[in-house]
């Protein structure tokens, strides 16, 4: 079975996000970037499938500029067999990415597309679903468990108030949730080898994908800072504040 894992390079989850003064986006210059954590979980799952002999070829794909190669090096060090970077200069929107991933999935005849459920930068939670739709494949989103057996994949999904288990026929698209696994640490010798391995390059043109944006971003603002809490003297004061200041009761 051939598995494609998508990896997006995002602002590191430890870094405080800063909105640009002109409100056009967030500051990314001189900001630490790393792989989207949900994509790392997807990668870990695929590596485990490889180790279990279920996956025969593991393909890591990213969409981005040259700096994005870094996340592919990590993917190779974790256990990917091949790495492909689809070269784009401008940050693409989920539909563009889905179209690119679908094109690669077709070209490479993969059996399973495994993605993070969403990227922590835009939190769009669309790429997996759109990829499935464009391919016409079944989808299993928010996976917390994944079992491949005889051309089918059983996916335990994290849903509101519980878990749902579904079974999909391959080829399929599955997106990883937080509890699916805990990604391994990258080993130094593996990283050393990964540095020397080739990274294949594709372009949207060669894949025949229309990269026009469909959504216009109007403004980015920082969340309103939370007001400091106050200590109330007694229940009466609390009720008074809830009724008259907060207006919630």
């Amino acid at each position, binding site marked *: 079975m051939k598995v494609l894992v998508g990896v997006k390079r995002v602002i590191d989850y430890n870094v405080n996000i800063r909105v640009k003064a002109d409100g056009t986006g967030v500051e990314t210059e001189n900001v*630490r970037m790393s792989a989207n954590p949900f994509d790392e979980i997807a990668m870990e799952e695929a590596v485990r499938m490889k180790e279990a002999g279920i996956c025969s070829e593991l393909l890591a794909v990213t969409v981005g500029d040259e700096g994005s190669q870094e996340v592919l090096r990590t993917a190779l060090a974790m256990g990917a067999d091949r790495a492909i970077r689809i070269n784009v200069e401008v940050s693409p929107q989920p539909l563009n990415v889905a179209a690119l991933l679908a094109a690669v999935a077709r070209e490479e005849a993969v059996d399973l597309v495994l993605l993070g459920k969403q990227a922590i930068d835009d939190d769009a939670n669309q790429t997996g679903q759109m990829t499935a739709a464009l391919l016409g494949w079944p989808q299993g989103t928010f996976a917390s468990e994944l079992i491949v057996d005889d051309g089918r994949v059983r996916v335990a999904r994290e849903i509101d108030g519980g878990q749902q288990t579904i079974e999909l026929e391959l080829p399929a698209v599955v997106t990883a949730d937080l509890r699916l696994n805990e990604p*391994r*640490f990258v*080993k130094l010798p593996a990283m050393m080898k990964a540095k020397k391995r080739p990274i294949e390059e594709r372009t949207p043109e060669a894949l025949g994908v229309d990269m026009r944006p469909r959504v216009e971003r109007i403004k980015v603002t920082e969340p309103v800072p939370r007001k400091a809490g106050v200590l109330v003297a007694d229940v009466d004061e609390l009720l008074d504040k809830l009724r008259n200041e907060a207006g919630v009761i």
Partner: protein
Amino acid sequence: MEREQIEMDVVIVGAGPSGLSAAIRLRQLAREWGRDDLSVCVLEKGPEVGAHILSGAVIDPRSLDELIPDWRDRGAPLQTPAVADHFLLLREHGSLRLPTPHSLRNDGHYVGSLGNLCRWLGEQAEALGVDIYPGFAASELLYGDHGAVRGVATADTGLQPDGTPGPRYEPGVELLAGHTLLAEGCRGSLSQQVIAGYELDRDADPQTYGIGIKEVWEVDEAAHRPGTVVHTAGWPLDTRTYGGGFLYHFGERKVSVGFVIGLDYTNPHLSPYQEMQRFKTHPAIRSHIEGGRRLSYGARALVEGGVQSCPKLEFPGGMLVGDAAGLLNVGRIKGTHTAMKSGILAADTLFERLGGESDQAMATGLDQALVDSWVWSELQRARNIRPAFARWGLWGGMAYAAVDTYLFGGRAPWTLSQRADHDRLQRQSDAKPIEYPVPDGKLTFPLLSSVHLSNTNHDENQPCHLQLRDPDAPIRVNLAEFGAPETVYCPAGVYEIVDGDEGPRLHINAANCVHCKTCDIKDPTQNIQWRVPQGGDGPIYSEM
């Protein structure tokens, strides 16, 4: 589990200015002299190059000119020339502009971010064939025959808090090298081991240190004066405490503002963090940043001992370079140029030992090469300034500095000795309590909201990287006699005294640590040992 071994020619610990300069020079020489097989590997504990770098910084490009003469054309991020030097003596209400001392004149220097410069140096190094591995911490020295250092091992990952292997356990890797360069910066954990183990400081005075706390602000275009450099002495410190503030305008509407305090301070109630916050409220400082936005925060210890405190740089199997060797010039508040030069000299020395030719005559070894270089004469001239302040306070120190500099030209026929910092604290009962103002949330901030801006992070599920040699000392000695100074000086809120069932105990929030090393230095009984946590943990500074 057995550790994998990897053999290389040179392994360098730390991707700061000295380590990267050494790496770049080695590969330049290798290319020049047809030794392209020379393998140079740099380990960096931060998640990326520059993430753990913190400096003022007004940088003297002397060594950069030597290492990469066309750095301007290659787009090095030193784009703000220093244009105006201000030296202010602050009093609580007002300030006095003093003539800028010779050592603080910055003609021809550049204001910028050393972190950004290191990122750029990292790119230059990689282009020359240096292998840099950020996110991998060197945690252990390896020894070969005859007790010589034979390389380093990286930290195990996936250890549980009790030190046993967890489900994601991966043993570290042994990097074996003929030559190991320790470029860890001030108070490096491996550097401390070789200095002690090989008695490299046998003929030296104790090393002395300072703590620097820094914030980067973004200000309005109208308030931004690129290249303006302000240094201050005096308030908010008393005249017995060594320290001062800095404020530099650079880049795109950026202002670095910070404060350095000598770790020989005596009052256990003194909080370097709070002094830094208070410093910003002075009208002469406030006017630069008020209305701006604070972008980042960090802290780092720095070496202040000068030549008296320099250990020998060479040890069997390796060398110390940069601040790990104590090469900062505290009179000029600069260490990047000396750190880089020591890296260059180390590379020249090593290359010859590796059997390569070079046009530099380095047969005498790194220690002699350093003594013969401008680094040594520069540090020699500055050597008495810092200890004079330690002896005679602000006024006496300034008077002495003037005499030493202008009358003797830095060549006074005596050398003032240095004393260790850790035993300088007064008993709590003898010390004057200090009351610090409440933060206003605009110019001054509570500690934890500052730590948040360092982007620091540690995997909680690992052994604590701050080790106590004696688990009872924090209560028996530190709390009883000094009022738990670690809870006061730590600029990241790592240490806390909490009440437990069996009385007070020290709680260590290791996840907050910004890797400044102050606790390793200032703890009165030297009971706290700073060790590297898992690779990739710690602050993520940008533009620091």
